[in-house]
């Protein structure tokens, strides 16, 4: 770096330039230096990292440099999209690491250094998103390349008001992060908040959007997620239209959207593509949320403290099942839930080859054999199974994770204080949810604070022509979606 003070990098001798770059990158095996003869008789060198550059563009550049007419300025003849002239070693090396090709050639009578954008290399192609499949709807999913992702969103919102702001986060990873929003629809305050929170992140690497989510969420220790992530461009585009801000992170197909409210975790993309009657299923999802949270706790509370609340034939049946079970109901619930969590984790991690074996073992452990061995009662197995299945109905996986953790808290409360404990737990939960904010928006809007017209897309989705305004808590001013004259009468 001592050279920088007296001689700027582009003006150094070619060999010196190359030596400095190699030194900076520690003689990396994938750094390629290609020496060429330039068209006007001089020499040039292409410096790039193999694997990060697109071979075709590279060849075209090499071709041009070698054969094209160069009238002193090599840069004029190079057919590439983005070019820059790094003035110091650091910038030049950063450019090479980002997939640019350094063209070291004669320029202006001396040496020069041009960085040409040749970003390429192997990328995953656009495929159906693994986590959010639909029956009806587009099957495009985000990939890991940020430019592909922004393009996917742009294709859906071909409006000049769609802004894309770039920044780099992460000292070592130097990950490209883009903020997307619709100027005039998203509130400036929110955009500024997102921007400032992103800028304040100081971390060495950002591998996935989850890192960023943890850094910028309102409450660092929040039990519930306050931002949604999606692999689908149509979901992100729809959210942008309601005035939210999207954060795309290079290297992750999951795009963050903020601010969000609680009910959004129960909205699936399909609700909007099918006829509006289908959205009644949302009620089922909310119901399953409660089942997944409370079912084992209710079972423990009722059979341990409140037997008078159970109808007599059911009580006799349950009592019959519990004959000979050595554990109290609470312990039974706990063991079964833990076993199911073990199975679930194993299912996620296992290699495909032994998948079959694990599922058989799982069925045995969790089901018939535990009952026959007299370790658990059949009713408990049913409760745990229903709880588990109900947990999968919630569309947002992050929310399902929170529910799983809370379920255990409720079981403990139920086993200690019965229904009183459960009600206290629910009150505490509601208080907590109402106190959460997501970038300034109350988390339980439009329920608390209540706003009638904005509830048309919460529990069920009203027909499209009835969703006339955008939710005011996201987009303050510009909130007309459907002009009154265009509204259909049923």
């Amino acid at each position, binding site marked *: 770096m001592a050279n920088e003070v007296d001689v700027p990098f582009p003006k150094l001798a070619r060999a010196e330039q190359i030596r400095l770059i190699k030194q900076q990158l520690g003689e990396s095996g994938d750094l390629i230096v290609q020496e060429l003869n330039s068209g006007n008789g001089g020499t040039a060198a292409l410096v790039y990292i193999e694997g990060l550059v697109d071979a075709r563009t590279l060849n075209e550049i090499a071709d041009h440099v070698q054969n094209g007419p160069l009238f002193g300025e090599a840069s004029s003849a190079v057919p590439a999209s983005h070019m820059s002239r790094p003035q110091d070693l650091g910038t030049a090396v950063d450019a090479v690491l980002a997939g640019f090709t350094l063209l070291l050639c004669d320029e202006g009578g001396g040496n020069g250094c041009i960085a040409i954008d040749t970003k390429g290399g192997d990328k995953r192609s656009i495929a159906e998103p693994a986590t959010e499949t639909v029956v009806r709807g587009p099957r495009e999913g985000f990939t890991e390349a940020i430019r592909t992702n922004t393009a996917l969103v742009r294709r859906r919102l071909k409006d000049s008001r769609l802004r894309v702001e770039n920044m780099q986060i992460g000292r070592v990873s130097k990950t490209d992060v883009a903020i997307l929003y619709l100027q005039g629809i998203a509130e400036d305050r929110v955009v500024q908040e997102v921007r400032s929170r992103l800028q304040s992140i100081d971390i060495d690497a950002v591998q996935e959007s989850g890192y960023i989510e943890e850094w910028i969420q309102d409450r660092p220790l929040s039990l519930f997620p306050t931002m949604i992530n999606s692999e689908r461009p149509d979901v992100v585009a729809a959210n942008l239209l309601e005035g939210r801000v999207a954060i795309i992170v290079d290297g992750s197909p999951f795009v963050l959207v903020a601010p969000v409210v609680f009910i959004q975790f129960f909205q699936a993309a399909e609700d909007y593509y099918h006829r509006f009657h289908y959205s009644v299923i949302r009620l089922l999802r909310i119901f399953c949320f409660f089942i997944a949270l409370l079912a084992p706790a209710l079972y423990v509370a009722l*059979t*341990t*403290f409140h*037997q*008078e609340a159970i109808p*007599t034939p059911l*009580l*006799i*049946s*349950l*009592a*019959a*099942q*519990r*004959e000979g*079970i050595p554990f*109290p*109901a*609470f312990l039974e619930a706990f063991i079964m839930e833990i076993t199911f969590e073990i199975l679930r984790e194993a299912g996620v991690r296992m290699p495909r080859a032994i998948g079959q074996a694990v599922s058989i073992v799982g069925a045995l452990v969790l089901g018939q054999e535990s009952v026959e061995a007299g370790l658990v009662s059949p009713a408990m197995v049913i409760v745990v199974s229903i709880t588990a299945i109900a947990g999968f109905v919630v569309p947002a996986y992050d929310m399902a994770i929170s529910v799983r953790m809370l379920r255990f808290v409720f079981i*403990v409360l139920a*086993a*200690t*204080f019965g229904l009183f404990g459960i009600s206290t737990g629910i009150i505490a939960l509601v208080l907590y949810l109402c106190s959460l904010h997501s970038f300034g928006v109350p988390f339980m809007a439009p329920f608390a604070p209540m706003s009638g017209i904005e509830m048309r897309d919460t529990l069920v989705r009203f027909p499209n022509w009835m969703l006339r305004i955008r939710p005011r808590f996201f987009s303050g001013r510009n909130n007309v979606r459907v002009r009154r004259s265009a509204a259909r009468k049923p």
Partner: protein
Amino acid sequence: MIVRKAVITMLLIGLCIVASGCWSRRELNQLSITVGLGIDKAGDEFMVTAQVVDPGQVATKASGSATRVPVTVYRQTAPSIQEALREMTTESPRRIYMSHLRMLVIGEELARSGISEALDFLSRGHETRTDFYVAIAKKSRAADILEVLTPLEKIPASKLFSSLEVSSKFWAPTHGVHLDELLNNIADEGRSPTLTGIVLSGSASKGDYVNNTEHVKAPAELRYVGLAVFRKDKLIGWLSEEESRAYNFIQGSINQATGNLECEDGGKIVIDIVRARTRIKGDLVNGKPQFRIRLEAESDIAESSCKKDIVDPAEIKQLNQQINDMLERMIHQIVRKAQRDYKYDFLGFGNVFRRAHPQEWKKLKDDWDEKFVTATVDVEADCRIRRIGTITNPLNQQMEE
């Protein structure tokens, strides 16, 4: 600061959970689910019988083991019911749990000497609900009633419960009384309760074997008979089937009832009353109470073996008149019985009078019984036959050609 507060809060909550140790937790297999309770008089003490479910035997789809029965009975004698129930734990491996009680059976002897003491325990206890039926064991002990196994329904107390519920609706002489209704009837001025009686027919000694349910016709059976009349909380007599029916008509607790009318030519017509409403008006006329009972009912023709042409509206009118006469006769009969034989107003007219004329009631209530004996009662029945069934004239008529 906030972290410290959070930690202290967590510790306190944790302490609550650990120290309270799942306070007052009761596992299902620590409870003896008592479905039937029988109370008898044993000298000065109470003999309490508890019919407890054996869940394993009830819930199994297969017949379980042939030598185990679905219920067990514990019996204890003690100066009070609470003591008796607690003493049962010396015999029972689990605590007697009363919340799911279905049936309370009181022995006749105890009923004659007063049931209010027994009822106080049941209404005061927090575990006992008020939705179980109360019945009197006629000419036997409650303990014997509760030891009989029943076909069709594995738990005998459930059978008694269902049977009373269904027969209250379809068979006029019985009336199912819940505990809260019973307590109200005892406490109300001018009224007294009546309870249905249970009779053990057949050979009692065979009743408590599984054999009882292994026959097509069980040797020992429990059945409901007429009503028992009380003077406040003491049993004073039994009503016959006809009288019980009349009583229920007066009270308005008829849901459906059946009766038959004789025809001139020897056949009979059976009618089914499907809706009935009773209105009683009480007045004071010349110092004597006067009551007007108006009974409105609708009925169907259930059977006909008469030569009458029941399609003819004139005939129907005549039949209506016959029914009305029959009902009026029935009610007069029971009023006479109350006035002459019992000399006690167990029909609840005092209560009717009290509601209509509370000021006069205050003056009369002390010697209401004498006043009641002199009361005049007018009965007006208005029963209409609405439907005659899916065929018109009876088979008899069509046979004659």
